[in-house]
């Protein structure tokens, strides 16, 4: 076999290519097969000095080794990879000269070649800890981004050991490229991701964010109430076209789905009530339960949750997008108040249509209840009579009044989140999500407060 140039350093060094198993194959040889070169692969324990097989370009290599040998010497030896003298193949030769290490790099430094010489170039630097590293680039014929990365890592490895680096011999254009790509700090601190905050700092930051949000909410609430008051006193200044457009989207377009939900809620409530009531022979009570629950609570609540999901998110998305595209800034620099211009029409529209939606929802809930009661031989007249006797006008007015307050909360939160949208493509989505979640939570909290207040007022 003709002599070839060794590519990997002597075999008394553990090269870490992995344990060769019987019937296995050398991973390093597999990688090198991508290169345009001829290889000799030898396992000294098996093949002996000068033994081995020659692998042609593109040829697969598959060796089997006795299990006993691999078990006895698991980490010491692997394949010795040689290459033919091909000037395009990247290679590294390392020559220690006292406390100076000469690293001669030859060939094309491309993305496919560089990984193969990476550890060969850097391993000796880490192991021998020289005072100076001299990189001889006279044999480098081409250098792309990966090649620049190799030079950068040589500098980085040397800098970590306090060694200096001299790169010499590069062609003029390559030298210019390497010089331009030279990192200002060879240790490359820019590779380190920003340190995440520790738990205490995160907790503190979260608390500050909540306080900041609370402050913004209180401030916005004041601005909004002032703007609404001003608008009610100057109705001609209100943007009626915007208000009716929002009312149509938030109200008229939601009637069908609100009615459907109301019907289903009434149906489900009637079914669930029928099961225990039937046991006690108290089916007469079912219309009372359904109508009171739907008209006082569930009708307004379900309608408002739907408005939060449909319209609250839309407000946040619309105004958030306007914030990101600087339309809100444009309004301000024109001397227009974004709260009066954008928020007031939306909030007033929501407050107009949501009570109507809650009435629709409640009515359809009562209808849904009847579809169950028909099975218990309730006529429509009997059912309506039971409903009329159970429901008082305070229940109806209380439900409608609550929905007005809920609508104010939904509109205000949606618009506030829109105005506080941050930067970046995820910001609008983030605002929308927070608007919906915050609206629903606050609506249910408000409902709880109303429940307590109504109880003590005897309503």
């Amino acid at each position, binding site marked *: 076999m003709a002599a070839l140039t060794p590519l990997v350093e002597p075999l008394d060094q553990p090269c870490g290519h992995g344990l060769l198993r019987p019937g296995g194959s050398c991973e390093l040889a597999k990688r090198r097969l991508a290169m345009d070169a001829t290889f000799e692969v030898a396992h000294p324990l098996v093949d002996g000095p000068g033994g081995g097989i020659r692998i042609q370009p593109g040829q697969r290599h598959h060796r089997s080794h006795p299990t006993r040998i691999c078990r006895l010497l698991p980490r010491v030896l692997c394949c010795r990879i040689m290459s033919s003298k091909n000037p395009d193949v990247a290679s590294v030769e390392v020559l220690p000269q006292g406390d100076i290490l000469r690293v001669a790099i030859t060939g094309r430094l491309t*993305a496919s070649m560089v990984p193969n010489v990476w550890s060969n170039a850097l391993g000796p630097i880490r192991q021998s800890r020289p005072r100076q590293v001299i990189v001889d680039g006279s044999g480098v014929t081409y250098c792309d981004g990966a090649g620049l990365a190799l030079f950068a890592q040589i500098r980085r490895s040397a800098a970590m050991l306090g060694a200096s680096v001299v790169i010499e011999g590069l062609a003029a254009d390559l030298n210019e490229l390497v010089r331009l*790509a*030279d990192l*200002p700090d060879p240790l490359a601190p*820019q590779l380190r991701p920003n340190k995440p905050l520790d738990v205490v700092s995160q907790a503190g930051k979260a608390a500050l964010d909540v306080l900041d949000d609370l402050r913004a909410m209180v401030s916005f609430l004041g601005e909004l109430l002032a703007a609404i008051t001003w608008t009610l006193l100057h109705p001609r200044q209100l943007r009626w076209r915007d208000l009716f457009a929002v009312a149509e989207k938030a109200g008229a377009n939601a009637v069908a789905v609100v009615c459907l939900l109301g019907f289903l809620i009434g149906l489900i409530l009637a079914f669930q009530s029928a099961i225990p009531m039937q046991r006690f022979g108290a089916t007469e009570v079912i219309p009372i339960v359904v109508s009171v629950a739907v008209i006082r609570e569930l009708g307004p609540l379900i309608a408002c949750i739907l408005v939060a999901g449909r319209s609250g998110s839309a407000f946040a998305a619309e105004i958030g997008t306007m914030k990101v595209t600087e339309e809100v800034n444009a309004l301000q620099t024109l001397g227009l108040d974004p709260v009066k211009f954008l928020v007031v029409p939306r909030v007033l529209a929501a407050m107009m249509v949501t009570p109507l939606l809650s009435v629709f929802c409640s009515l359809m809930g009562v209808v849904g209840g009847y579809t169950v009661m028909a099975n218990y031989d309730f006529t429509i007249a009997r059912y309506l009579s039971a409903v009329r006797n159970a429901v008082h006008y305070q229940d109806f007015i209380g439900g409608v009044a609550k929905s007005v307050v809920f609508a104010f909360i939904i509109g205000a939160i949606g618009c506030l989140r829109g105005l506080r949208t941050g930067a970046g493509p995820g910001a609008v989505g983030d605002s929308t999500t927070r608007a919906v979640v915050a609206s629903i939570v606050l609506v249910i909290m408000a409902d709880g407060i109303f429940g307590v207040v109504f109880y003590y007022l005897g309503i």
Partner: protein
Amino acid sequence: MTRQNQQLSKELAPRRARGLDDGGEPIIRVEDFRATYGGKTVLKDITFDVRRGEVLVIAGGSGSGKSTLLKHMIGLYKPAGGRILIDGDDIAAADGPQLARLMRKFGVAYQGGALFGSMTVLENVKLPLEEFTDLPAEVADLTALTKLQLVGLVDAAQKLPSELSGGMQKRAAIARAISLDPAIVFLDEPSAGLDPITSASLDELILTLNHLLGTSFVIVTHELPSIFTIADRVVVLNGTEKTMVALGDPVTLRDHSPNPWVRDFFNRGAPGATL
């Protein structure tokens, strides 16, 4: 042309003499290209090529179809007629995996940067290396970092795109476009919205990358100072005629074009004029 750009142009003049007229196979060839929009022809009868190592500028007035032509060249749209050969392969006829493979032969920097907002600048530049090479993570990290160093953004590696200025975003976009060391880079209005100093530094960067990496550039722009600084040749589109009306060296076109509209185009206004 500003004094700064004149000096820059002179220093790099020898580069222009090398290898661009060697008669070799062009890296891009556009043949009888035609584009339509909503059934109407917006561009027709466009034929030109891009030589290896060349900086070719596509210029024209607003609405003349410069970006449309560029988007067809990078395979985002299919032409209504003609061929677009990228290194010998017709990108207009390619689909699916073949198109994806062709698209990896070039890099694109969009007008607004189009950086991925949820990733840091370093991650943006590293993404093509992670997806399309087998480079180990350490090598990919440093490769991306050196690309950022080339565009002067190494200290912004861990920042999000939303934290960068417009000029920095464009530089980061160029770094991402060259991360795979493509033979061709397409730039769509790289100087749009930038101040003259930043625009000049971007021109210098393009010339440096062209000079050192041998990358061919196809640039859509209507900034006259940039055209005179960086362009080896210019393709001039006319929106009214919906076709190419000139192809050549910008100085020659300015002074000696037989088409008076083209001469007026290049002579319009004082230095620093835009179209």
